[in-house]
């Protein structure tokens, strides 16, 4: 046990509050966490006025409030979690958070490579420079307001990740790849956070706008910065309601880049899935009606559609459990249904319904599927899957004894036990509570960052916005629109949507008025939503309307109709 976490502090401004966070490669373990707490450099400890160590296995948003002790406002903890993530490969374990008002000299002196080892046997060495995050952020909300103008870049929250600037010599390349993972994680967390906390306010939109306008292609660091800005603003408790599609899209395009594979996700080669003119009838019902669908390798395609649109039938066609009446199907280069078996061998399926063997242990569940998928080293595959599902400690427990979230993670890991090239996720989070859903999204995000091709059917718009590089909207057995979420939104819904809450009679009136002006209106529960309201002339959007950014939901309802089938 050894190695040293490293703290590096950038330009320091004594007038600002500074958060220093140390992440080490120690697994979440009470003893390990205690050990870390003890090894905060003594000089630094003198400067800080609060230290918090939180085991990383706690849920990222700390919805259950289990991250004790937490002496600080909840939003600060959330910010950290976003930053640090819970990378499964190398799990950050806890974090030490300090605040101080010391000058730069004092802090430089205090922060030395932390060579202290943890106590518990489970600890892993901390690679020099790895997983060390130093965040400097301004405290004064008024400073952040200036971000809206985009002219004060210096005062933007700043993230320094050591490994963006890796040490020279051996391993530099690997370190860079690792840091990409970390950044991808951070952005994913940011997205989860934004969605959970609510909609973006004006200030966030402005931040996103400012960053979007940068002339050059934003790098990873910039993406993370963007995520952080949003996080920060959220933490300032600005009025927020819903994720901004621009941010979500932005994050998706970032996370869609398979960092580990060193591949540009836009560099499309062979299609993993090619369907053309596929028809599937069940008696008088045509479930899939001339479906054309191409999923390039390395992307996550969200198949979005209402119930009964033909999503599940499409999934069954791909696994050979339904045979098409017409059309051509090709999966990973194999013609279906004739070569369905070799295609299935390279494909992982995560079903909508939990069909784990409940009396059987966690590891046996995985081992059975490793054998079914003909994995050569079953033991190694099981260990890998256990790590992925974070269930190493529970390997000998029966599935029955697991919590709902653990079961879902296991179900996902079971579908990945053979490291498939292509993964079909059939409504991966249907009927799950927000915590479990966020957890699964994180796992799926990791899968994406490894470059695995994903076809995910869902009727949760949020899920598609969050995870999908591209979305295909399906209804009545056909794809009726396809593109990146942001493209779909701007193409079909415009920029803004005005929502009006009013008594039903008034809504009818307003709707008629807006429609007579050529505006598109959709019902939105107790309200109506005027889609593309930026194009509306004076007087058609009443003053009481709440203006928000257009979302994929607007697109979805416009394209698939108002009425549920």
């Amino acid at each position, binding site marked *: 046990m050894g190695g040293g976490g490293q703290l590096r502090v950038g330009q320091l401004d004594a007038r600002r509050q500074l958060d220093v966070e140390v992440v080490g490669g120690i697994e979440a373990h009470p003893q390990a966490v205690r050990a870390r707490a003890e090894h905060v450099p003594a000089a630094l400890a003198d400067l800080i006025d609060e230290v918090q160590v939180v085991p990383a296995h706690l849920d990222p948003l700390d919805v259950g409030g289990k991250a004790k002790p937490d002496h600080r406002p909840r939003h600060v903890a959330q910010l950290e979690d976003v930053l640090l993530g819970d990378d499964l490969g190398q799990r950050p374990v806890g974090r030490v958070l300090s605040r101080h008002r010391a000058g730069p000299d004092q802090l430089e002196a205090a922060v030395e490579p932390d060579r202290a080892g943890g106590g518990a046997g489970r600890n892993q060495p901390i690679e020099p420079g790895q997983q060390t995050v130093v965040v400097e952020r301004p405290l004064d909300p008024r400073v952040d307001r200036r971000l809206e103008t985009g002219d004060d870049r210096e005062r933007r929250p700043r993230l320094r990740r050591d490994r963006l600037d890796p040490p020279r010599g051996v391993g530099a390349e690997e370190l860079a790849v690792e840091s990409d993972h970390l950044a991808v994680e951070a952005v994913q967390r940011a997205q989860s956070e934004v969605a959970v906390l609510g909609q973006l306010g004006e200030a966030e939109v402005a931040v996103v706008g400012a960053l979007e306008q940068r002339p050059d292609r934003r790098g990873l660091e910039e993406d993370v910065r963007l995520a952080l800005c949003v996080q920060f603003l959220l933490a300032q408790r600005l009025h927020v309601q819903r994720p901004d599609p621009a941010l979500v899209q932005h994050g998706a395009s970032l996370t869609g880049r398979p960092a580990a594979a060193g591949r540009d996700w836009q560099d499309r080669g062979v299609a993993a899935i090619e369907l053309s003119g596929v028809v599937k009838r069940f008696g008088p019902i045509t479930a899939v009606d001339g479906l054309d669908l191409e999923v390039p390798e390395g992307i996550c395609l969200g198949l979005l559609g209402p119930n009964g649109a033909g999503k599940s039938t499409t999934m069954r066609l791909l696994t*050979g*459990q339904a045979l098409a009446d017409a059309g051509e199907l090709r999966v990973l280069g194999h013609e279906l249904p004739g070569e369905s078996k070799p295609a299935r061998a390279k494909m992982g399926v995560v079903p909508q319904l939990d069909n784990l063997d409940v009396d059987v242990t966690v590891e046996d569940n995985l081992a059975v599927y490793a054998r079914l998928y*003909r994995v050569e080293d079953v033991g190694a595959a099981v260990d890998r899957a256990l790590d992925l599902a974070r269930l190493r400690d529970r390997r000998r427990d029966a599935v029955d004894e697991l919590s709902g979230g653990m079961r879902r993670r296991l179900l996902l890991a079971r579908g990945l036990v053979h490291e498939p090239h292509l993964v079909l996720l059939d409504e991966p989070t249907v009927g799950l509570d927000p915590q479990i859903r966020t957890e699964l999204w994180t796992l799926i995000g990791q899968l994406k960052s490894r470059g695995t091709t994903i076809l995910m059917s869902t009727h949760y718009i949020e899920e598609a916005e969050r995870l999908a590089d591209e979305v295909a909207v399906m209804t009545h057995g056909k794809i009726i629109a396809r593109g990146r979420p942001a493209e779909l939104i701007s193409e079909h819904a415009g920029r803004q949507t005005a929502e009006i809450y009013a008594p039903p009679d008034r809504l009818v009136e307003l709707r008629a008025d807006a429609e007579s002006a050529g505006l598109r209106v959709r019902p939105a529960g107790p309200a109506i939503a005027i889609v593309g309201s930026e194009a509306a002339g004076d007087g058609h959007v009443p003053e009481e309307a709440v203006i928000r950014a257009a979302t994929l939901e607007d697109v979805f309802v416009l394209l698939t109709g108002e009425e549920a089938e």
Partner: protein
Amino acid sequence: MRRLEPAAIGGVMSREVANFRTYWKGTTFSSVLEPVVYLLAFGLGLGATLVDEVDGVSYIQFVGTGMVATAVIFSSALPSMFGTFVKHRFQNTYEAILAAPVDVEELVTAEMLWIGLRAGFYGCFPLIVTFFFGLDPTPGMLLVPLFGFVTALGFAGFGVAMAATVAKIDQFNYVTALFVTPLFLIAGTFFPIDGLPEGVQVAAQFNPLHQLVELVRGGAFGYEAIDLLRFAGLVVFALVMWRIAISRMSKRLID
């Protein structure tokens, strides 16, 4: 790719083994206790008061050897029917298995093989229990697990086919009343079939359980030439049921 790949069949069977490890105690317990209870009830009760011996064999040994067939059908047809139905309809297990490189044919074959092996094994229990009631072990009995296995394969296939046919689990009541109970009673387990009306006797010849009973008694008291034919009949029964099960299940599982 071959049609029946050992890797696929082995994989499906390994799932059964993993599950079996969680419930083998109960199954084994009842497999031992049931023949004991039957032998005590029939052998001692009926044997002591009404029947001394049948065809020169003490009644308790007559019943004990016959009960191999009872054990085989109850540990093959019923688990196969209910197990298949539950895995298919309630647990969606087959959906996950078929998403792996496993075809319906391999899935059904594996399920039948597993039940066949299990029932062949548990089918020996009544025989072993009967040893304690004075039956002498003979070398011929070494074939009993094989007879049990082949018969159980057939009934496992029957169970799979029924599970793929019924719409609701309650409908197994019809299957049990129409097929399982009559087959089990007119097998010559508790009474010899030669006393029955001629029509029933002819029908009993088509009862695989009756053939099994005769084979087990052959093992215990001496084989006859006709036993080869009986065994061939059981093999045919298993093969036919195997194909029926595959075709019924394919209809169910593949749209």
